[in-house]
């Protein structure tokens, strides 16, 4: 419990409050009432059981991209390529879903495996380049983002063209969707799908790997100091490659939960914003799996409530993205918060 309310939790909380404050200032700036704005934003995310379901469904890919970024970060790697890994994962899942005819449980298993594999390959390349040639992973993952963007751009119209639009794939069949009747029914017809359970399992598995295994310990050691860990006999190169691969796999799985769970087809010409939001999720969650989970649900609520807010007030929906971006900035400058927190504590101690 003490760890839960530790310094990183406080800084995350302060960053969120500052982000919400910045959002309020913006609302006032355009002449809207921030109180009713936030009221509609939160009601839009939580008002009914259906909206709660949508919040969780929106949060699902964010949990996985957040895990992806956080996992790489533990090894000292900055995975800015979650968007591309997610997109390629989505493409793999969609391709399998539109090609194979199998009973639903089997089909879903193959689709999810394909998504994980696609994402892992997209993470493996930057990992290899980093380990073998010291190519900076930020640049490599950015390049991989664009390669997946253009791959989807050409593969989808060529092989999986939609019935009406050139810019999207055919809709997947019901058997190929992660949406299941009992869950949709339970949440009043929302977008919620089996992806949520996949995300939860991933959180548990990643938490176990990081905290309870030798492999996870080695990854963290490489993250703290690559040279020292090598000196201690850890194969740093192998850790880097594995870390990027697992990070890619998580984001790829996130792609499956989005494109064949939340949605039912894949669009071309769009890099999923969830990939970049994953950075925010990871940062706000303090790079810990359960922190990621909490942050993703919070951001999911903002995203799922913004439409309702926009309909009820005249505040543009981009306010949610602005709030999230501001939260990352304040998380990045958390040292400022920590410094003031320490000062405040000292003053309180001195007054005694």
């Amino acid at each position, binding site marked *: 419990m003490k760890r839960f309310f530790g310094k990183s939790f406080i800084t995350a909380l302060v960053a969120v409050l500052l982000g919400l404050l910045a959002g309020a200032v913006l609302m006032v700036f355009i002449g809207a009432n921030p109180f009713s704005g936030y009221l509609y934003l939160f009601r839009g995310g939580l008002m009914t059981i259906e909206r709660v379901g949508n919040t969780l469904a929106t949060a699902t890919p964010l949990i996985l991209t957040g895990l992806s970024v956080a996992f790489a970060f533990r090894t000292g790697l900055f995975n*800015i390529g979650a968007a591309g890994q997610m997109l390629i994962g989505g493409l793999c899942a969609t391709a399998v879903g539109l090609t194979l005819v199998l009973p639903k449980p089997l089909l879903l298993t193959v689709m999810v495996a394909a998504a994980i594999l696609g994402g892992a390959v997209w993470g493996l390349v930057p990992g290899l380049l980093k380990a073998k*040639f010291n190519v900076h992973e930020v640049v*490599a993952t950015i390049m991989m*983002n664009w390669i997946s963007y253009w*791959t989807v751009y050409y593969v989808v119209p060529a092989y999986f063209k939609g019935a009406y639009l050139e810019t999207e794939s055919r809709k997947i069949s019901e058997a190929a969707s992660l949406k299941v009747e009992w869950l949709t029914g339970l949440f009043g017809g929302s977008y919620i799908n089996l992806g949520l359970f996949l995300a939860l399992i991933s959180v548990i598995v990643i938490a176990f790997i990081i905290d309870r295994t030798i492999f996870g310990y080695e990854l963290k050691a490489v993250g703290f100091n690559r040279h020292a860990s090598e000196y201690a006999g850890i194969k740093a190169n192998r850790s880097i490659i594995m870390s990027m691969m697992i990070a890619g796999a998580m984001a790829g799985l996130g792609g499956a939960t989005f494109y064949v769970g939340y949605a039912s087809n894949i669009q071309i010409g769009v890099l999923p914003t969830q990939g970049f939001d994953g950075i925010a999720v990871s940062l706000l969650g303090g790079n810990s799996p359960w922190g990621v989970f909490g942050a993703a649900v919070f951001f999911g609520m903002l995203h799922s409530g913004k439409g309702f807010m926009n309909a009820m007030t005249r505040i*543009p929906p981009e306010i949610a993205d602005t709030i999230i*971006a501001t939260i990352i*900035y304040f998380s990045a400058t958390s040292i400022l918060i920590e410094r003031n927190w320490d000062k405040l504590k000292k003053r309180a101690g001195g007054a005694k």
Partner: protein
Amino acid sequence: MQSSMWTVIVQIFPYAIAFTIPLLITALGGLFSERSGVVNIGLEGLMVIGFFASALVISKLELALPDIAIGLGLLAAFIAGALFSLLHAFACISLNANQVISGTAINMIAGALTVFLARNMTGSGNILIIHGLVRRNVPLLCKIPVVGRLIFTQTYATTWLVLAILLVSWFLLYKTSFGLRLRACGEHPQAADSAGINVYRMRYIAVMVSGAFAGLGGAIILVTYSGEFTGTVSGLGFLALAALIFGQWKPLGILGATFFFGFASTIANVSQVIPALSRIPGILLKNFPYIITLAVLVLSSKYSQAPRAVGEPYDKAKR
């Protein structure tokens, strides 16, 4: 065959240059920042800020002041970029924040904030300008055979502005004491400090230059080939960052790298209408610049010219 190839090159050259120039100025901005020791992955967002600021100013003023509206728009983008980059500078230099994370935050704030404001103004979130820059032939020089046809005909004024900035930047970085100090801050800030250089101030200046240049880059996209603010510069800022590394942190290298990207992208864009290229699958042409970048990074990684202290916050207490 020879002559048709020449026609194709003549036809696509102006487009390639138009695409190169915003990349070039943005990468030059990144050069200042990284040479002083601060990674600026926020170039993308800073371009968006310039894109927005220029669209705002030009759309408001072009009817009242048709002659100078574009100039004022470019100036506004320059200033807005510099001011917005202060967020990055403050986080990275004064607070020792992780530079990549701060840059990512800059990208996200810029993208969301500008569309938020634009949507509040126009409803659609796009801002249209009526007139962009007009292409002009450079007098006399356009008569030179070959070169005149390729480089001096149908040019934008901003192209010459950016090339002038390239020259000035090279001079500033390599031929003045200011440049030497700035580079010292990126190589060995402790040594620079002990020689009496204010590392913090140099880095602030460098980051603001990068913001101003990136802002200008965004504005140039607007007044040359886009004509409309759309809320995104579709990854050009990231491409500029790659060009900076591809060009090995040197002005001329950057010129070559950005021109390569400009030319390769233009070829991919027009490949459908050119018989010689339409046989190559689009997926290969589009991915070509990115794959080449990765390949070049692999080949050049052994003798990378990266500034020694790039990405490291300067800590006075450390030696």
